[in-house]
């Protein structure tokens, strides 16, 4: 990395962390059901990344792939300067091959989910390193280009990442490229003050990316960005990893369960005695 202190940063210099979804099961379902293939997606994303780097010569782009079995950095504009596209595509191909070789399951029900929590955590570590590099640094933001359904098992990890991003004031923008909305990404963008967008027409992805997600954080104040279409605040129960909108909360540890249990599986509290001592509490249970 060029020593950060030697550069002069204005408030419109961006560090864009792009998380791309490379889940092969998702892309094969997109292949079968729509005309929007992975290679089309990549050509849109590459054009977008190039335009970000052209907007300001000090802008920096880092790409992290969230795969089905692993996550990895595939591109960093501060280390690889020439032939961006070739460099990115080469690393991405290596990553996809490696990701596939890690697969242990023969068949997957449905599309499966990609490891969003892993790539989010890595992006946040990278951003912290940029923060540590000195008082002058580009303004970081995260853009999730995500299509796979949410993995309910990642609920706690994704929420932890969201809160850490919020504390460091890093907005998480998200663009849902699949057929469904993503509750994780809706919450991530809502909590961190980012933009959530689900494009109506996937073939026009570049247009959506360049009009909504290309502007730096400072200039966003002057734009009419898409308003949230509502936020899905459903949580995952700890017992079956189901997504629920109503459930039982352990008063000792706040674990969420989808049905009534006698004992909390997280903290071991027994819920029996409460009924005798506190009639108002048992009313609530009905």
């Amino acid at each position, binding site marked *: 990395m060029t020593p950060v202190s030697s550069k002069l940063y204005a408030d419109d210099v961006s560090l864009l962390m792009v998380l791309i979804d490379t889940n092969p099961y998702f892309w094969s379902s997109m292949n079968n059901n729509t005309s929007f293939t992975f290679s089309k997606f990549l050509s849109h994303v590459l054009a977008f990344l190039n335009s970000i780097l052209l907007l300001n010569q000090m802008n920096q782009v880092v790409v992290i792939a*969230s795969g*089905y*079995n692993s*996550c990895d950095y595939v591109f960093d504009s501060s280390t690889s300067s020439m032939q961006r596209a070739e460099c990115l595509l080469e690393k991405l191909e290596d990553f996809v091959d490696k990701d596939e070789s*890690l697969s*242990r399951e023969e068949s997957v029900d449905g599309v499966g989910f990609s*490891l969003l*929590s*892993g790539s989010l*955590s*890595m992006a946040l*570590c*990278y951003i*912290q*390193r940029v923060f*540590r590099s000195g008082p002058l640094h580009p303004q970081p933001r995260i853009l999730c280009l995500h299509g796979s359904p949410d993995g309910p*098992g*990642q609920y*706690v*990890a994704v*929420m*932890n990442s969201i*809160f*850490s991003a919020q*504390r*460091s004031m890093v907005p998480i923008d998200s663009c849902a490229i699949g057929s469904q909305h993503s509750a994780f990404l809706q919450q991530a963008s809502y909590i961190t003050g980012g933009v959530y967008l689900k494009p109506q027409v996937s073939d026009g992805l570049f247009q959506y990316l360049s009009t909504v997600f290309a502007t730096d954080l400072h200039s966003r104040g002057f734009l009419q960005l898409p*308003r*949230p*279409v*509502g936020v*899905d*605040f*459903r*949580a995952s129960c700890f017992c079956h990893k189901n997504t*629920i*909108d*109503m*459930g*039982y*909360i*352990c*008063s*000792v*540890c*706040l*674990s*969420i369960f989808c049905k*009534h*249990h006698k004992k*909390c599986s*997280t903290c*071991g*509290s*027994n819920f029996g*005695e*409460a009924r005798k*001592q*506190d009639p*108002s*509490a048992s009313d609530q249970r009905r």
Partner: protein
Amino acid sequence: MNNEEKRFNQEEEDEEEESGRGREAWERTYADERSWESLQEDESGLLRPIDNKSLSHAQYRRRLRTATAARIQKGLIRYLYIIIDFSRAAAEMDYKPSRMVVVARQVEAFIREFFDQNPLSQIGLVILKDGVAHCLTDLGGSPEAHIKALMGKLGTSGDASLQNGLDLVRDLLNQIPSYGHREVLILYSALSTCDPGDILETIQKCKVSKIRCSVIGLSAELYICKHLCQETGGMYFVALDEPHLKELVLEHAPPPPAIAEFAVANLIKMGFPQRAAEGVISICSCHKEAKVCGGYTCPRCKARICELPTECCICGLTLVSSPHLARSYHHLFPIRPFDDVSPLVLKDFHKLPKNCFGCQLSLLNPGNFPGPQVACPNCKQHFCLDCDIYIHESLHNCPGCESLRNAKTISDMEQ
């Protein structure tokens, strides 16, 4: 270095001579900052600054190890009253600019941290001055409201009455639900208490009401405070200086290990409402008004509500925002402390990863030798020391474990 040492010795002697008399301003800066405490003697007797990065990192990791072991069960729905002593004693200037300002600053930081770590909990503020206790704010969950009220009421006068303060909060805390964890945190500046009756009786009543009382003193240890904390199961410490005070106050932010008899465990039925789209007009059930802004929808009866947390006024379901709950889950599933990579492994450095798995920083020292690094016991990925701190203090996820589907299922099966 030796010269410096001599100079320090001289100053200490000077101070002894002057003790008892009022100190000059230039002397006070030495006495108050205690700059000699940040020096340490090495093997040859030379002085060197303590602030040594790897040493502090080692200390940090030791603390982390004990902390993860201790916090297994905790009463997360806490009802805490902060009693602040703003009597004459709080005007003392041994803390800069005064005890009152320093305490207010630390309480502000504490309130923010408290709500970050205890999402469903509530705080109330009580102030002791002129021999009476004023309830500044009622129990509530909004940090801004408390901070605003506190900053608007700065000023010291009269004596402090510990008994009046305890009586007031005991009445207030007796009204809360039985699953709540009752706590009082007292920031006490005075060296005496000016009470209308027998304070020992009040302390016994607090014990019966299962109120955990903790005191942080600003001047010197008081028997009555120590007795109060011992009887009610709280903690008593006297702060030495502002950083120490900050540390003592923030120690109360993470949930204390719940003592089973203190809070009754309960399963509470709750709903997680969806947030409606911005700009949709609907009539809310709480104010019975048509509103354009985005509200929330009760998942059971579909009534529109303006704010969370609340109780649905149609069906009575307790409604919370699920991210609010999720803020505390890192306490439930703490990630394991990372291991130091032993020098034996480091010798074999050609096999080691060259970059930190989290931030891609090179783990090699100048000269291409492996620098200090740590490894996750679960996924075996290597991290730099800065990522280690960030991962355990703020992120609460191991990036390595989160980016391995198979490793994750293995550790799930072990549990």
